[in-house]
């Protein structure tokens, strides 16, 4: 085999052959699910099963999972290329969120799971036989994760879980849940993040009531309120040591931020492309509206902001894959990408004038979907607090 030639000491911003092949192959799958498909899902709210099946059939869910369990053993760079390609195609978060959780969600299992657990869980996830949801957020804790109150009580060879989760996405159809719960009461812990434990277990609908939340966008990929009542979780479904739940979860947070950033950039670019096309074609006052600088300049700014955010996302991903710390970069990427994409989506609606408000022009759907990336998985405010504290040495403000 001919090695990829890379000059040493040369900063390389290009994707390698394999990364390009990944992008091209995924965009071919996406091309089979055009704008009408996603418009339809936005109106009927049906989960994009056909899309998820096509992605699963191509082996894509295993992109960042170890080879010995049937994955491709690639990194977050490649997973981010996959996620970005999906939203960029116009599938937006309806497409990305349908696969997203299966990409980064199992990460704690990959890092902290025992071999037995990896063997039991990962191949089924990659094959699409299991579908996982992610239960962290709670109604009464908000972003203050230390105050999670879902309780797990040890009883012999199992735990009994009680409590509530909020916003748990894809719980309508998932059969597995990665869930964090308190195993030691907050008051008895030395540090606020102690005493939490992580479980990956069956979503037993006789013990968990899953209630759909009617929401602003991404109708096809459900988010839910969970009411957990005496859920029995075998000890062998605990990931990592008891009390180490937060530490385990933490490992997946930076990858998740990076993926959200890549997804946001993709959606912003899809919006910008529509806006630029419309600006060229729409004639008012006998000229294309794009001939007015008031229309073309904001679009140029959107392009620059999206490119910058894209670079930050892939910088964070490259740091992560090299085993370097990437907390500041991953958070910055999420922040910058959400801002850039929100601005692009908003601008795309405005560029379309009245038609921007019509569903058949797609950009209003993008605008509703991009709000997810602004709000979740961590708010823009918390990112600013984090950067101020960790990078700039300011007093912790929260």
């Amino acid at each position, binding site marked *: 085999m001919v090695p990829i030639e890379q000059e040493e000491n040369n900063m390389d911003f290009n994707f390698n052959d*394999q990364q*390009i092949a990944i992008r091209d192959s995924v965009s071919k799958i996406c091309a089979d699910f055009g704008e009408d498909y996603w418009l339809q899902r936005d109106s009927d709210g049906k989960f994009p099963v056909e899309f998820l099946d096509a992605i699963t059939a191509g082996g*894509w869910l295993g992109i960042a999972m170890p080879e010995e369990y049937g994955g491709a*053993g690639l990194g977050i760079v490649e997973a981010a290329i996959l996620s970005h390609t999906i939203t960029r195609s116009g599938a937006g978060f309806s497409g990305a969120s349908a696969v997203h959780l299966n990409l980064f969600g199992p990460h704690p299992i990959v890092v902290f799971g025992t071999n037995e657990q990896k063997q039991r869980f990962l191949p089924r996830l990659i094959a699409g036989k299991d579908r996982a949801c992610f239960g962290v957020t709670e109604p009464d804790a908000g972003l203050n994760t230390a105050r999670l109150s879902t309780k797990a009580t040890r009883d012999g060879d199992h735990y009994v879980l009680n409590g509530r989760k909020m916003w748990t996405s894809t719980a309508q159809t998932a059969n597995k849940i990665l869930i964090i719960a308190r195993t030691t009461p907050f008051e008895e812990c030395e540090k606020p993040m102690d005493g939490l434990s992580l479980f990956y277990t069956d979503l037993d609908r006789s013990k968990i009531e899953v209630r759909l939340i009617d929401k602003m966008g991404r109708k096809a990929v459900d988010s839910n309120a969970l009411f957990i009542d005496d859920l029995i979780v075998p000890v062998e479904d605990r990931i990592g040591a008891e009390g180490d739940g937060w530490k385990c979860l933490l490992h997946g947070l930076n990858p998740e931020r990076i993926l959200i950033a890549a997804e946001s950039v993709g959606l912003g670019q899809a919006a910008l492309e529509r806006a630029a096309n419309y600006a060229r074609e729409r004639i008012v006052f006998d000229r294309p509206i794009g001939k007015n600088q008031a229309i073309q300049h904001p679009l140029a700014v959107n392009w620059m902001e999206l490119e910058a955010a894209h670079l930050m996302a892939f910088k964070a991903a490259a740091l992560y894959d090299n085993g370097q710390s990437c907390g500041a970069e991953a958070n910055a990427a999420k922040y910058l990408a959400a801002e850039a994409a929100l601005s692009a989506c908003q601008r795309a609606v405005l560029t379309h004038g009245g038609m921007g408000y019509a569903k058949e022009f797609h950009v209003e759907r993008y605008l509703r979907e991009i709000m997810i990336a602004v709000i979740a998985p961590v708010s823009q405010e918390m990112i600013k607090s984090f950067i101020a504290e960790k990078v700039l040495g300011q007093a912790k403000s929260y």
Partner: protein
Amino acid sequence: MKILVTAKRVVDANVNVRVLSDNSGVDINNVKMAVNPFDEIAIEEAVRIREAGNAEEVVVASIGPTQCKEQIRTALALGADRGIFVETDADIQPLAVAKLLKALVDKENPDLIILGKQAIDGDNIQTGQMLAALAGLPQATFASEILLADGEATVTREIDGGMETITVKTPAVITADLRLNEPRYASLPNIMKAKKKSIDTYTPEELGVDVTPRLTTLKVEPPSDRQAGVIVADVEELVDKLKNEAKVI
């Protein structure tokens, strides 16, 4: 049986190319590139023949700058077994391509050579025909169906008047038309496997081929903008317009 296929690097079919301001060509800077779609069909056909047990090896060749290895990798991910890369930064015209492929045919002795019927950039529709002539092999162009049996290929060809079926002795050169098959998408496991497949690299000099261009491009111009159409109420109005306005009948 061994099959040789090609994977030309071309501008992606979905890209709207722009003509350079000096009219010397089109701008392909930072433009998405892909395997020529007709070559993809050729590759798919070869892989299907191998999967059906009628061939042992599919070898894919690409000619051009170093980035062409991307297209070879893509072909390997689609199922080809091995790659040959002819590296050159020269402007390679159809005759030079045909000569280089002829040199590869001499080296590899394939039993079947399948190429795209044309490349979507130059649209020359010459390479397959010239390769067959240079190599002294029978040719079956514009194939929409290929059946192999007893050292022969029975090929259905799409021609102006409809369909034509011919039988050629193998080894032969076949060029793939659009309806020959629908190429698969590369799966992630196959992209991973492609990494481990080998690519041999040659230069035109090593193959003893003079690739000096023989054609000069005088000027490249974009096609004129299309006028907006009109919707006619019925056939009578259409005929009337064709007769009296367009004056074509």
